[in-house]
């Protein structure tokens, strides 16, 4: 590590004007590049290095023989997954939970941010922000515990329903309610937290634009539509792309905690399947194959959306 700055300094001394621009640049700002070393090392060691282990998806991993020594299996694990009776159900649940999340849960923090931004009273808007983002800090286990208490057949929600003459609903043990509860509680928990970044972006919108719009007689809604939203559009697009980047990953712990035989129909997703068949039963190769499949879909989606965004809105990750 230490030798590098000296080397770099040498280069700049001996060949001050030759070499590519990059080398000169490095020599000149070697301190900045030094700082970059650590993150690069982090990525190499923890993100690129492990890619070598991906080969177990195509092998029959045997811990005693190690990754290199395990016998090749080819695409057997993928075929087994695609042939599995539950494949389509897993895929549909994973995709649909994310799709609904994206459609419903994605716009809500934006609306909340716009709402907070429009509130005149500073104290009141701070209050609102605090109250909405506090649930973010509750652990998943506690959230599911709260859901169990509130939605149980003898819980407050069902007591309310019965008080109004309805009959109690078994929320937690029905496939029909699962996605609603899962996504709904996610929104409740995270909308405040996710709105922070939009609120920050909104504060960066030039106030002169609002004044000008006001002068032209734009109503509040018009101002939101023509000033606020375009102002934060790049942020929205970037966050959307990032969200889609892990489209196939759902809140694994929460789903696992909420799962039971009666809602499995709609709560069985790829990540819980990986856990129950792979980690619990020690089938690492099979699990790695499913994980790889998942990641490949994520990557494809990310590339597609990024390309689409670049074409239509000129904002994209790269």
């Amino acid at each position: 590590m230490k030798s590098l700055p000296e080397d770099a300094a040498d280069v700049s001394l001996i060949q001050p004007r030759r070499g590519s621009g990059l080398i000169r640049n490095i020599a000149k700002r070697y301190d900045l590049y030094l700082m970059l070393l650590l993150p690069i090392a982090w990525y190499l060691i923890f993100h690129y290095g492990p890619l070598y282990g991906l080969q177990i998806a195509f092998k029959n991993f045997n811990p005693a023989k190690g990754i290199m020594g395990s016998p090749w299996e080819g695409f057997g694990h993928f075929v087994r997954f695609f042939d599995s009776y539950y494949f389509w159900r897993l895929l549909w649940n994973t995709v649909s939970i994310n799709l609904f999340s994206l459609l419903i849960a994605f716009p809500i923090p934006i609306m909340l941010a716009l709402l907070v931004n429009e509130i005149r009273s500073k104290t009141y808007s701070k209050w609102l922000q605090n109250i909405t983002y506090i649930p973010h800090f509750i652990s998943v286990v506690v959230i599911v515990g709260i859901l169990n208490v509130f939605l149980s057949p003898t819980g407050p929600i069902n007591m309310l329903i019965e008080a109004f003459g309805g009959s109690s609903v078994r929320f937690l043990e029905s496939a029909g309610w699962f996605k609603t509860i899962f996504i709904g509680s996610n929104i409740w928990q995270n909308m405040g937290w996710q709105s922070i970044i939009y609120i920050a972006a909104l504060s960066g919108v030039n106030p002169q634009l609002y004044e000008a719009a006001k002068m032209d007689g734009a109503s509040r809604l018009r101002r939101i539509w023509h000033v606020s939203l375009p102002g934060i559009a790049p942020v929205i697009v970037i966050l959307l792309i990032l969200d889609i980047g892990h489209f196939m990953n759902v809140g694994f712990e929460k789903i696992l905690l909420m799962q039971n035989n009666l809602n499995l129909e709609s709560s069985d997703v790829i990540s819980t399947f990986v856990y129950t068949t792979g980690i619990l039963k020690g089938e690492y190769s099979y699990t790695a194959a499913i994980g790889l499949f998942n990641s490949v879909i994520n990557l494809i989606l990310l590339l597609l959306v990024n390309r689409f965004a670049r074409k239509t809105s000129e904002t994209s990750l790269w």
Partner: protein
Amino acid sequence: MRRHWGRSALATLIIAGLILAGCSNGGDSKKENNSPPPSTESAVKAEGFPIVDQPIKLKMFTRIAPANGPFKEMPVFQDYEKLSNIQVEFTEAPTDGFAEKKNLLFASNELPDALFRSELNPLETIRYGTAGQLIPLEDLIEEYAPNLKALMEQYPEIRSAITTPEGHIYSIPGIVTTGSARTDKRWINKAWLEKLNLKEPTTTEELYNVLVAFRDGDPNGNGVADEIPMTARNAAAGIIIVNMMAGSFGLDLQLGYNINIEDGKVNIWSGDEKHKELLMYLNRLYKEKLLDQEIFSHTEAQYLAKQGSGNAGLFFDQTNNNFLPIMDQYVGIAPPAGPNGDQMQSAVAPVPRDFGAFAITSVNKHPEATMRWIDYFYSDEGSTLLRFGREGEHYEMRDGVPYYFDDFIAVTGAQGKMTPYAGGGAPHLISDQVASFINPPQVQEAFKKLEPYMPEIRYANPMFDEETAQKVNILRNDIDKYVNEQSTKFIVGALSFDKWEEFQSTLNKMKIDELEGIYQAAYDKMAK
């Protein structure tokens, strides 16, 4: 707040793999050194204590149940260390997440010397045994485990349950010779029966009527219909209430699966008409609120609380330990006869009840001493130490049988903290000699009513070779999940019985015949 779970899991796996690849060369060479047993082991005595003259240390991986205290504070391990000269250092993993930790241990190849109370399933045993991570024990048992050997001679089904087709034994089970400890009793609320002037039900229809009376007759006399007529455990694998009622519908549970053996023919009954009848009966009970409405969601703690509350009419448990203060309120009954006159107690565990309870790994430098160490617990003396602790401190002998002191047992939780058997699955012998606590007179009486209806011989899960075991695993992954999920739905009425044919045809699509064939072949081998 989406977690990159899949990716990080993968990364963890892969990192584990990296580390492991680094170690694997070392591991291989070690194994080579190991294959001829080290001759330095001459210090191990074939019998008598101490087992070794020079103290040795062993590292063991174990499961710690919620009821247990730290293993190093248990009298059994403290006293046995002095007796045997073998010091055991336990790594304790809680029951929750135990399977995960155990498998990661093997995947990372960072093995302890032995696994104690490890709940290895047959597939894991074969997989890790074939891979060389677990060592074959059959020769060690022959020479260094006189107690275990004697048991295996007395109960031949033990050997067939733990020996692989190649003739190796990679793990040893917890052995239960006390019949009563192999099955759950049917505890019915005698106080309620008397109050409502009812007789013990002897058929499923009578049972239905009794449960209706429990529901409507307000037997607890508080004026509110809050009685739970019938309840059962909610287990992660399988549906306990189905297993408990299966015998009344002519369904047995052989070979550790939904299997009837008739004239040497193996029949997986998941798609049979009898299974449908059973589910329809349970559906009727559930619909009319005769079956606990929380039966598929309550936790173990909630279920035990229901036992202790005295507010349940009929439930299932091996002992009366969970409702000791109100034990007089309950009495055991025989299995009810079903619509076709079937009357069996099917949910009966085999003599080698807790499969894969103990195993020795390839890194163990003292396999002989380890085998002698564990073998002690397969004697009445060792089992008494394990289950009852110290004489004079925790228990006393009455008529040659150990009993806990009353004031020791009266302290809530003290017994579970003291012995590693609380929480189940410990590798040891449960014989009548050490069963005074789990098998007091009341439980014995309850068992006597069940005994005539128990199967003559209970075949355990068969051992397959690695390839077959993997095939069974793949088939059962889908089939078991499907059967459990659909059965649950049939019972609660989320799925109508019109769909039964679809259920059957899906089972066929999942190749249930192939599975049946594999079990048939295994049974044929076993019966020979």
